[in-house]
């Protein structure tokens, strides 16, 4: 990869974003295109443990591709910062958590594309018309009867993590005792379901735009699979996510998918006037556009005063950078709890934001299923 980088940004884009060993001079994009999450925080790369050279290279790349029309949102949640397709709009998105949000919550249409197909779509404005672009393929496959209250953010994560593993790339339709969700809850739910499985779309009748009723969610088709989600299933999801046994926590990661401003406010509220443990480090991740808001609101100051770090542009799963020596991680994200053990060898605790902030303050995990 280093050899590729030496050949310049066109060579990198050609190989990695177009699957072309032949170097293509990258023109201006023709489709509305934004940069997904990256490996480097443009301002706090040193805290990440990333070299100045690499950070400098990223800045140069951003300037290069920015001039070609790619918007540097640098987040896994473009729908939080102005890239919000309307219902029925055809998209070519990557980032599995954003894809499932785009299809399910926005009612826009995208398959889970990859680096090479989005790279080509940006330049051509075209993407194969199949899969989730076609109405008939957007109907539910599994009816999920939620038998226990699913209300808080953690429970939406657990529900998603359980369902992904069961339905794989099916389209679950939720009924029962899930309360009215909001952006944050559906962001966590979709990310979890797209990690344990391959969920690219779901319906919640009377909530999501293509499901005014259960019948509409199934596109009028007969319901072939029905499954239940109760206390046992919740417990299974929780145990599958918690790979840690050591309660001493080195690192607390909040913000996958990238935090909304209300989540950062919640974290700041829990930390105000307190100090995190000397044995633990806390990183809070958000889109750079919202970081500006957090700075102005004073949230960043509160988190920083408590000893935490507010980062944008990246996350540990993407960058594979965590504080040096990290062995045990606590997170409110099912997605990070799923991936970090595989990619970095750490073990993880998964819990609520409050559990995670308490772990940061005490340096010890005391969370659990309520």
């Amino acid at each position, binding site marked *: 990869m280093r050899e590729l980088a030496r050949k310049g940004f066109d060579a990198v884009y050609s190989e990695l974003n177009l699957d072309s060993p032949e170097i293509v001079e990258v023109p201006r994009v023709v489709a509305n295109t934004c940069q997904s999450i990256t490996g480097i925080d443009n301002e706090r790369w040193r805290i990440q443990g990333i070299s100045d050279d690499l950070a400098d290279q990223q800045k140069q790349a951003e300037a290069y591709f920015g001039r070609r029309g790619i918007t540097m949102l640098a987040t896994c949640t473009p729908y939080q910062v102005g890239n919000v397709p309307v219902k029925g709009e055809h998209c070519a998105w990557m980032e599995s958590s954003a894809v499932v949000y785009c299809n399910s919550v926005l009612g826009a249409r995208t398959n*889970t594309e990859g680096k090479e197909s989005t790279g080509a779509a940006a330049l051509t404005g075209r993407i194969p018309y199949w899969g989730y672009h076609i109405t008939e393929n957007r109907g539910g496959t599994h009816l999920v009867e939620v038998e226990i209250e699913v209300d808080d953010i953690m429970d939406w994560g657990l529900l998603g993590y359980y369902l992904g593993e069961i339905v794989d790339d099916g389209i679950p339709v939720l009924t029962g005792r899930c309360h009215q969700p909001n952006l944050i809850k559906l962001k966590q739910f979709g990310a979890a379901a797209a990690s344990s499985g391959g969920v690219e779309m779901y319906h919640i009748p009377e909530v999501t735009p293509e499901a005014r009723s259960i019948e509409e969610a199934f596109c009028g088709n007969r319901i072939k699979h029905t499954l239940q989600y109760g206390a046992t299933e919740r417990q299974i999801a929780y145990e599958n996510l918690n790979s840690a046994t050591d309660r001493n926590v080195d690192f607390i990661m909040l913000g996958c998918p990238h935090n909304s401003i209300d989540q950062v406010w919640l974290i700041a509220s829990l930390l105000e006037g307190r100090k995190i443990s000397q044995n633990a480090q806390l990183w809070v991740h958000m889109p750079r556009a919202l970081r500006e808001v957090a700075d102005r609101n004073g949230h960043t100051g509160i988190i920083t005063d408590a000893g935490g770090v507010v980062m944008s542009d990246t996350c540990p799963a993407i960058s594979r950078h965590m504080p040096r020596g990290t062995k045990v991680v606590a997170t409110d994200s099912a997605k990070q709890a799923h*991936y970090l053990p595989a990619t970095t060898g750490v073990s993880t605790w998964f819990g609520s934001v409050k559990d995670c902030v308490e772990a940061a303050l005490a340096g010890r995990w005391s969370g659990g299923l309520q």
Partner: protein
Amino acid sequence: MPTKIILRGRKVVGGCAEGEAIVTQDTISGWGGINEKDGTVIERRHELRGRSFKDKVLVFPGAKGSSGWSAYFHMARLNGVAPRAMIFNKMTTKVALGAVVTRAPAMTDLEQDPLLVIETGDWVKVDADNGVVEILKRRREGAG
């Protein structure tokens, strides 16, 4: 003589290659699920955890997880650790794009479920151009 089984199916990526099969009943994550430097599966609760598909014929149900699926199989190819061929059941954009950028012969929609017919260690020839998979069953201990 080892048993030979022939299955017909649909070409995803053309070409013809053969090798030893590595079979899993679990769907595979690309990004976050494989090590692109040595071709091993790294997902924590995966049937193939710690085993490499390098130079093997990878037989699996389909793709799950991150949209980095293609990018990681692409890098596996650039690093010389890609599978020689792929056979899978469930077509999605993730696996289709991943197969294309892996540039190894790939097939789907076999007339029988490859996860039931092919076992790890069988010798498998994937002739995607002609839509044919040839399976030589591995000789069993104590057999013949």
